[in-house]
């Protein structure tokens, strides 16, 4: 036995303190369960330290500087300069405050915190190695365990994040200077958010994407609004090309790409950011010791109580199979798992899983698209309100995009919606609530919306679906 190895027990052990794990821990403790949370790195996980939060901080600052520098039409003359190292300090301050807050909240709710890396010994205990040499380890026995170990960025052959000019999203969010030229591999939401940010900060950005448009998975007309704006920010897109490798040339990086037909191109830059997706962290946990088996891609399958095939071991967050890799999904799953352990009548039965992309403009979507509604057997009726007909949008100077609502024609039930435009990430909240409530078009259209707000567009979209919009022509 290693020196310092002690053995303790806990009702619920949670592995990983990201938005899946720490939320599960707090809720479990709120239900009076003896709860232990183990984290090897930093409270808040990817989301607070290297994901949602730092990226949004960069986006705010770069957008403010860019907007102020491009508002001559409104009579504003400014030539903002951005001090990247100060921006990074500010961002780090925000992150520190939030991660410190998570730690405090866990303690205040009575969660036992352990710093270290957990591995399963069997289906009733983990061995936790404390960080650093000679820090020892301990064994914790559990009645229930919640696996919330999250995900890491995928590396593609030829691009090692260990190499200095090759950036993961985490490296990009830790930079102290804006590269003059940046090649971004991958036009998914992380690639697009960061491309937009660096373009606004003054970088020459080139995006290489294997598929044929930005934001695969989003409808064409939604993606188009974001691509057009990105192009007007000077971002150069190359679709249908996969990155095959890179080589240094003096201080430059030369990125090589290849089309399906084998045609190659090269792009010269200072840094290359690889953002092609994330894979779950289940390979460093010795899950087989607990009788667990991951899917081919490393995910854990669960039922709608977030239980894995081993009943008293739950999984939440990015490690869960067939569940969107989003912070708020992880948190919801964490709540379900914790409350189920506590004996509450819960299930992950969300009808509405909203998602946002913080590009310019933003995207907010929830529930079904028109095509998905049709596929599910509904006869969809759709209503749209373009933001260029919105008084509020006009007064903000941001009129690109639209709000769309998808409903079932016969019953009027709201099935989903897609918003691309200013504050889309916030506006989708009402639509998500409508879908979750089983609300109808009439419920949305019949609710008074404050004037002048962007949220009126949601109401107008519902009226448009009913054939009685005021501020757009009905079809």
């Amino acid at each position, binding site marked *: 036995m290693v020196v310092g190895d002690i053995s303790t027990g806990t009702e619920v052990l949670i592995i990983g303190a990201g938005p899946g794990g720490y939320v599960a821990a707090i809720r479990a403790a709120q239900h009076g369960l003896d709860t232990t949370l183990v984290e090897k790195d930093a409270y808040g996980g990817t989301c607070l330290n290297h994901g949602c939060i730092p990226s949004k901080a960069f986006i705010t600052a770069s957008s403010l500087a860019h907007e102020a520098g491009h508002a001559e039409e409104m009579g504003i003359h400014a030539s903002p300069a951005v001090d990247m190292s100060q921006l990074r300090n500010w961002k780090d301050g925000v992150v520190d405050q939030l991660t410190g807050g998570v730690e405090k909240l866990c303690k205040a709710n009575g969660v036992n915190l352990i710093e270290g890396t957990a591995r399963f010994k069997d289906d009733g205990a983990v061995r936790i190695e404390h960080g650093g040499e000679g820090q020892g380890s301990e064994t914790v026995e559990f009645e229930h365990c919640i696996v919330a170990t999250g995900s890491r960025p995928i590396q593609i052959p030829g691009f090692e994040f260990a190499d200095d000019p090759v950036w993961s999203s985490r490296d990009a969010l830790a930079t102290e200077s804006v590269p003059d030229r940046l090649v971004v591999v991958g036009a998914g939401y992380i690639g697009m958010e960061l491309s937009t940010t660096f373009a606004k900060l003054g970088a020459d950005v080139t995006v290489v994407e294997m598929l044929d448009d930005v934001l695969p998975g989003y409808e064409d007309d939604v993606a188009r609004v974001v691509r057009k704006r990105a192009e007007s920010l000077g971002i150069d897109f190359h679709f249908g090309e996969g990155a095959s490798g890179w080589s240094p040339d003096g201080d430059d990086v030369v990125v090589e790409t290849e089309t399906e037909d084998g045609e190659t191109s090269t792009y010269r830059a200072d840094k290359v950011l690889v953002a092609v997706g994330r894979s779950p962290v289940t390979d460093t946990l010795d899950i087989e010791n607990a009788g667990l088996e991951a899917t081919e891609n490393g995910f854990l399958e669960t039922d709608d109580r977030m239980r894995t095939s081993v009943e008293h071991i739950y999984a939440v967050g990015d490690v869960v199979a067939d569940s969107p890799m989003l912070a708020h999904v992880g948190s919801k799953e964490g709540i379900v798992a914790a409350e189920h352990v506590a004996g509450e*009548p819960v299930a992950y039965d969300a009808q*509405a899983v909203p998602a946002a992309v913080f590009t310019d403009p933003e995207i907010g979507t929830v529930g079904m698209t028109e095509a998905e509604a049709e596929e*599910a057997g509904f006869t969809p009726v759709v209503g749209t309100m373009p933001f260029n007909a919105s008084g509020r949008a006009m007064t903000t100077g941001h009129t690109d995009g639209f709000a769309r609502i998808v409903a079932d024609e016969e019953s009027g*039930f709201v099935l989903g919606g897609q918003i691309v435009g200013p504050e889309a990430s916030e506006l989708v909240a009402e639509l998500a609530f409508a879908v979750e409530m*089983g*609300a*109808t078009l009439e419920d949305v259209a019949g609710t008074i919306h404050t004037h002048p707000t962007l949220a009126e567009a949601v109401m107008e979209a519902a009226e448009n679906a009913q054939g009685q919009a005021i501020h757009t022509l009905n079809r």
Partner: protein
Amino acid sequence: TPSGRVFASPSVRRLARELGVDIASVSGSGPSGRVTESDVRAADSGGDDADADDDGPRNVSFSGNSAVSKSGDAGNGKTAGAASAEAAGRARTLAAPATRRLADE
């Protein structure tokens, strides 16, 4: 409805689990058949309990058709503070726009 989707609010769905009512089999009295709290309570007192927490794991798909309801079963029940039916009868109309219009018609 298509895909067996149930239209009911989160609190009504939770109540159904708590009472062990299979919400998919409840016929809703709200607008377009939305299942309400009283529908679930009526189904419960009607005795058609579908006390069906098969404790075994079940694989569910969250993607694409994420809006499709997963079968509502009972959980390992414990009473939670549920919305009271009486309160709905207060002076205020605590009913949605579509419900009220239905009433007016």
